[in-house]
């Protein structure tokens, strides 16, 4: 394997290296397993490690901005983001969270990417290197930062095969006071549960059943599509009611 590794010290440097056909790598938790174990035609890696994209700052009293290369551990350590800790703790292990980044989490395939599910529920915006700001679901190319408003009534729940370090069977993230509900593990990408949101006015039970119209689940090593469909209403209801496991 002949692989060039670039570690530019600016966003402009990253873009230049990407323009030459490089593949973006942030924490490496998704790119490196493929590179280490599969045949690959990747010839150039462009690392974000020195591009100055890590850090958490408050834009104003209610709005937070997280650099795309901020690690999941760093996100969890930010006092303003304490509400996200249960979600972060449910993602992989500390040794992975010390590498994995916010930006990278947007691009990992389901049933991974629980933080992306949270960001969808938070209606977060992605700042792109080309100057555009787009919704999380439309993030593409080089994401430089994520921003969102700190929610008032936050709910998170993840059904997994083990208590720690396991991918999602069903992930539910919700901002109740809007309401905005996002689901993970139940489709190829995180989904906004629009039917569930519309039904929430009739209560958590109604929203839980309506969520079945929002999903398109798949079989994998963690659960079958049948099982995911079967338990989605249970976990949506429990999440919305704030019930303990």
């Amino acid at each position, binding site marked *: *394997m*002949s*692989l*060039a*590794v670039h*570690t530019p010290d600016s966003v402009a440097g990253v873009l230049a290296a990407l323009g030459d056909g490089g593949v973006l*790598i942030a*924490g*490496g*938790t998704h790119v*490196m*397993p493929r*590179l*280490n*174990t599969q045949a690959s035609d990747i010839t150039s*890696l462009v*690392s974000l*490690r*020195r591009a100055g994209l890590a850090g958490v700052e408050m834009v104003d009293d209610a709005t937070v901005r997280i650099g795309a290369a901020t690690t999941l*551990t760093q996100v969890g350590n930010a006092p303003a983001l304490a509400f996200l800790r249960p979600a972060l*703790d449910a993602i*992989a*292990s*500390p*040794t*992975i969270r*010390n*590498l994995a980044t916010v930006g990278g989490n947007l691009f990992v395939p389901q049933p991974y990417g629980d933080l992306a599910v949270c960001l969808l529920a938070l209606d977060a915006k992605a700042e792109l290197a080309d100057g555009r700001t787009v919704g999380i679901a439309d993030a593409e190319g080089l994401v430089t930062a994520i921003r969102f408003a700190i929610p008032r009534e936050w709910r998170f729940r993840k059904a997994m095969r083990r208590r*720690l*370090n396991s991918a999602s069977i069903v992930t539910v993230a919700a901002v109740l006071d809007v309401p905005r509900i996002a689901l993970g593990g139940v489709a190829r990408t995180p989904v906004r549960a629009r039917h569930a949101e519309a039904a929430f006015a009739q209560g958590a039970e109604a929203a839980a059943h309506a969520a079945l119209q929002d999903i398109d689940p798949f079989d994998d090593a963690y659960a079958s599509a049948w099982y995911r469909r079967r338990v989605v209403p249970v976990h949506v209801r429990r999440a919305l009611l704030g019930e303990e496991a």
Partner: protein
Amino acid sequence: MRSSLIELTVNDEEREFLVPPGTTLLNALRDQLGLTATKRGCEQGTCGTCTCLLDGDAVMSCLVPVETVQGAQVKTLEGVTRADGSLAPLQQAFLDCFATQCGFCTAGMIMAAEALLERNPDPSREDVIRAISGNVCRCTGYESIVAAILDAAARR
């Protein structure tokens, strides 16, 4: 493709060495520096046996291209052992609590525990379980490893 010159501080010692492009931190430690305590397992970030400390944080060294961490501080199991070759309390606790069977996970387990105890000298059982949740052991059933880490915390 040309080799790159890498500078790292490994176990408090400044090291300079050449690596072929795309070398992981894991392979640099083992193949370039001869530090073979850090084990090569799944190479997918799943098993945890390659765990070492990168600037104080426990990471899976198989997931880190070494060219991206120029100048970093790295600590491996060799750096946990005392300078006179005697075992550190954490290592002694693993021995005393029968926390090692085949030994393949041990280096990674100890490094994950080392990172925990450096930040949290008095961890709860729950803290310990979380800290080693990325490290797979197929022999011990984890119980003796958790006991060893708690025992080491009490000794330190």
